[in-house]
């Protein structure tokens, strides 16, 4: 029984620390979005590069990073609530947000892998066409 309690304490400690660092990671991600916005404004003022493409890439990256940061923040909040209230529902909510976080990264990676495969395909066709 005592052994089980130690295990659970260790698990709770790991969960609490994961939640704490997830919250800090979300905050730094929001700060990075703010910094990117500043760079965008300075870039527009200094008239560097194409404004349309810069704004477009900023919107895309901001949407993705905000979704990731919000999921991390909600994961952290629900883990803390779950540990405090000792309620299954909060842990399930926390895990749902963590799943969404990994899902977004996974989908981005799938798109990147698809583009990489397309690049290699085009590259191979060009090489074959040359010989």
């Amino acid at each position, binding site marked *: 029984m005592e052994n089980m309690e130690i295990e659970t304490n260790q698990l709770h400690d790991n969960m609490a*620390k*994961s939640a704490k660092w997830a919250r800090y990671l979300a905050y*730094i991600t929001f700060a990075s979005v703010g*910094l990117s916005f500043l760079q965008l404004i*300075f870039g527009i003022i200094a008239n560097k590069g194409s404004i349309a493409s810069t704004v477009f890439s900023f919107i895309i990256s901001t949407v993705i990073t905000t979704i990731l940061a919000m999921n991390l923040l909600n994961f952290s909040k629900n883990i803390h609530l779950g540990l405090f209230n000792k309620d299954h529902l909060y842990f399930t909510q926390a895990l749902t947000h963590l799943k969404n976080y990994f899902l977004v990264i996974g989908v981005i990676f799938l798109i990147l892998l698809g583009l990489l495969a397309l690049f290699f395909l085009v590259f191979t066709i060009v090489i074959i066409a040359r010989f």
Partner: protein
Amino acid sequence: MENEPLASNTFSLDIAGKEQLQNIGKWSRFIGVVFIIFGSILLLATVLLLANFEALMTEIIKLNGIDEEMIDMLEKGGKYFIAFALVLSSVILFINGFLLFRFGSKSSHYLGSQSEYSLIDAFTYLKKYIYFSFVLACISAILSLISTIVFFGGTH
């Protein structure tokens, strides 16, 4: 979904929680493998860069045309700096990949065995991954801030 309180000295997940953990395990293992593949590609690129630097430079000069100053910089040691940056990036990718893969494996193991030790290990790897990501995000934010100050500060 049930909203029952947990016993004070035990930890268990309900069916919905286990389903989410299963999905997390799958996605984190996939992301971990992709990180390791990208890390391997970068490592291979570093070896190829160092082995065929002269030939590569000749091709790049033919395609884009690089000024003398840049060629001189690359020949003096720039290639080692690029190689170092590539190796560092691949090490970061390997660490991230390993931590995520282990987190996913331990989560799946917990669902199969119901052993709390597996869940403890899973959350240890998750904690390390998030901490590592936080450190990287801090470094990235600081570098971004410095580059903003240097780049835009110098224009006015």
